[in-house]
């Protein structure tokens, strides 16, 4: 039974009376414990796809099954993380992390204990009681990751979680996420427009067309785990990169996707 199964999903918006199709019959499935990256040109509707799975919006047509069922209300079933850290400025790192547990009705004290036990893994030891605005971008994003993991969902939706970070911080957080995922083995759906990031982290890469998005192809990433940073320059990685670029742009040469 797949963890997430998207079948014939279409989504269109009305803009000034004009119908703008964003997703054009998207179908794919994600197995339990699988890491799938959704790759597509900017503005192709990949975030919309993630919002649909998270239950923030409803598809115009098609179905989305979570753990084999098509629920009436999908919110609260998957953990979701945005490009922005979305930490509440009035809460400390610790109290931000326990937010999903509080929503679920877990008493504060018990929730805090669970969060404190994970501070080392998330590199936040010593900053439990710091306010978000005193932290660096990388630390804030790690705090957002901790909050996402503490939601306790087996399916995690990541919407360009490294998009707002500088290249060095991004690379170190990718390394960290790869090892974290190898330890936790959650089902992850990662939306990104960074080919290297998708290949470095995922088991499979789903390539979307420009808007309205369809699935252009799926690239299995047969790189060994644990993933190492050096792999990104290895011949198999570079071959995969060329294959994905070709799929993204429809040409042999890597170039910018049309707007």
């Amino acid at each position: 039974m797949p963890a997430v199964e998207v079948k014939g999903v279409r989504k269109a918006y009305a803009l000034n009376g004009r119908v703008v199709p964003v997703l054009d019959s998207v179908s794919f499935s994600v197995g339990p414990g699988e890491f799938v990256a959704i790759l597509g040109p900017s503005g192709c509707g990949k975030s919309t796809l993630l919002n649909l799975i998270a239950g923030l919006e409803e598809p115009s047509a098609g179905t989305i099954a979570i753990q084999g069922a098509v629920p009436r209300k999908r919110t609260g079933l998957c953990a979701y993380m945005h490009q922005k850290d979305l930490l509440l400025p009035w809460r400390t790192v610790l109290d931000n992390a326990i937010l999903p547990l509080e929503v679920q009705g877990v008493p504060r004290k018990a929730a805090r204990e669970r969060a404190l036990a994970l501070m080392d893994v998330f590199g936040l030891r010593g900053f439990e009681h710091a306010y978000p605005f005193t932290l660096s971008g990388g630390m804030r994003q790690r705090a957002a990751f901790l909050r996402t993991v503490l939601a306790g969902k087996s399916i995690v939706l990541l919407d360009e979680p490294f998009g707002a970070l500088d290249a060095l911080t991004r690379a170190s957080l990718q390394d960290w996420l790869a090892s974290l995922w190898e330890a936790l083995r959650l089902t992850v759906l990662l939306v990104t427009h960074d080919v290297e990031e998708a290949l470095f982290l995922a088991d499979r890469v789903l390539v979307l067309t420009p808007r309205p998005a369809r699935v252009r192809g799926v690239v299995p990433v047969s790189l060994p785990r644990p993933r190492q940073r050096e792999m990104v320059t290895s011949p198999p990685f570079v071959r995969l990169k060329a294959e994905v670029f070709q799929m993204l742009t429809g040409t042999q040469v890597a170039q910018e996707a049309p707007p």
Partner: protein
Amino acid sequence: MTRWVKERLNEWWPPLALMAGALALWEGLAHALAIPRWLLPPPSAIVRELVARGDLLARHSWVTLQEVLAGFAVAFTVGVACGVAIAQWRVVERGFYPLVVASQTIPIIAIAPLLLIWVGYDIRMKVIVVALICFFPITVNLVDGLRSVDPDLVNLLRTMGAGRWKVFLMVSLPWALPYLFSGAKVAAAVSVIGAVIGEWVGASAGLGWLMTQAVPRFQTPLVFASLVALGVMGIALFQATALVERLLLPWHYTMKRQEALKWTSL
């Protein structure tokens, strides 16, 4: 000298110096030009009046302060309730909010005599006038704050399975609190105006009433002494609201201070 005192001094010396200069000039001109005291008393005469009529001023200040505090409390309660309702329900926003804004174009001084007819001379009339003046900044700022919540933050809470009121309590309301306090500070500063207007229209005590008694008798120093008492009251109310804000929203206060720490070029 502690760091706190140093920082306060650093912050306060420019307005204090400016005021001292202005008062000295006023004092000097009043004597040099021999301006009669009923026309414009020098600052020294006002200070003497404050000391000599201290009991009288304190008694009437207490009356005014009660009106201001009660009016502010009413405005805060009603304002928060209205702000929440406007932000939470489209119907209320569309039907009620334009009326709230329109109500502000009616001068309070024109409504006060009507209130005199409807509720009479007692404290209730003054409380209503104060509340009418304080209500608007509190409501409008709270509505602005509740509307400015990051929609991505609301969506994040929704993905966690939070319902509408959980989102409101955990995100929207804390987000809007700094805005609410901005409104409350404005309200605190103008609340005194409401009490004075109410007392001018119909009262038998209070600083505003005291001024209406002193003016026809050309007791100008007493008018100025009442003004000083009103000013002190307004500033104290503003500072008290700011203090509550700082105690309730320590994160907001430190964040603002953090931003204020700028590198200085040497």
